[in-house]
């Protein structure tokens, strides 16, 4: 599965939602779409660190790096290169 799809599917199965069916486009701000609490954010962080064997530094733990599928993927790609 390509990176974007993996991240999207992780978000969809973990973010707190009203509807059973939601869609998230690459540039949708997930913090605006649903109620993103710290537990979700932490799960997402643990997931990308484990899945891609990277270590996200404190300075990179900003909303902007986690707000969209695109931004999360750029963060991962940046760390991998």
């Amino acid at each position, binding site marked *: 599965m390509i990176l974007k799809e993996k991240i999207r599917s992780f978000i969809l*199965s*973990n*973010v*707190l*939602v*009203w509807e*059973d069916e939601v869609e998230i486009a690459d540039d949708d701000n997930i*913090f*605006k779409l*649903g*109620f*993103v*609490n*710290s*537990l979700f*954010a*932490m799960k997402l*962080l643990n997931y990308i660190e484990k899945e891609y064997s990277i270590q996200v530094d*404190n*300075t990179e*733990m*900003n*909303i*902007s790096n*986690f707000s969209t599928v695109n931004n999360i993927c750029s963060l991962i790609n940046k760390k991998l290169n």
Partner: protein
Amino acid sequence: MDELIKCVVWDLDNTIWDGVLMEEEVQLKQGIKEVLETIDSRGILQSVASRNNYDDAMSKLRELGIDHYFLYPKINWNAKSESIREICTSLNIGINTFAFIDDQPFERMEVEQVLPEVYCIDAALYTGILTNPRFIPERITDDSRMRRVMYQQDIARAAEEEKYPENNIGFLRSLDMQLLITAADETDLARAEELTVRTNQLNATGKIYSYSELEELMNNPDWRLLLCELKDNFGSYGKIGLILLSVGKTALHIEMMLFSCRVMSRGIGSMMLHYLNQKAVEKQLSLTASFKDTGRNRMMYMTYKMAGFVDAGKTDGDSSLLHYQPEFSSGLPPYITITDQSNI
């Protein structure tokens, strides 16, 4: 220093009772009920790791009137270290706060080898645990006395959650959660101290405050010491949050914020930050916070950062200073009511 024990895991055969359940009629060990009751009333949790048939052992525990003391009892044929690890995961408390009591040297050795941080005790010494300092909390609060009952409420909540699709907000709405914020008074100080000692993951600075320090802060007009209690349809989670604020000329500053890990999945930290920002806006103050990396509180850092805090240098002490600069505000979630009686 060795950690205070938070959970005692008991073997059954020849430990809780005399005899082997599968082979003979068993009888409770002398004084064991009193030991279980005393440990329970000190706010120390208890569980079971026994090699037995689950249904038989549980019905015997019920018959003996002691089944309610045990959370997540593991009665199976697995290694005891595996059972203890599972209990540890379910309770979400550190493995170094576990004690294991078993009459068989082999079982204790197995646990010691796999989980060296677990305090293993020979069942022959079961009454001795009551006077062992690792089993004596310095203070016992209303919250600690209710701890086991609150875990049982949590288990009932989890069963209810199973009925909903995963991560569905309908479950949270069904709980009718209410967060009550109050200014600390004398009766809260022991619990406040306990929270600073017991809370690691959701603790912004990791600083432990003594009873007398908290008392001083409570009486000092420069500081506001707040307690948060969470309630829902299943009962009260108890006083699960502690916040220390200073109201300055330009900023409302969060010197300390911590929440019991029992409310981790409720997003209380994010909500409180949002609420405190509303307060800061009302007072035309900016909102700042102290954070200190303790190696265990990354989740709290994430809570601040994902709420819209940015790093802004150092505080006067050795903590980082965080400054609230939201790009946008998602608002308070609709599934919780906040009642503030603190008069911040």
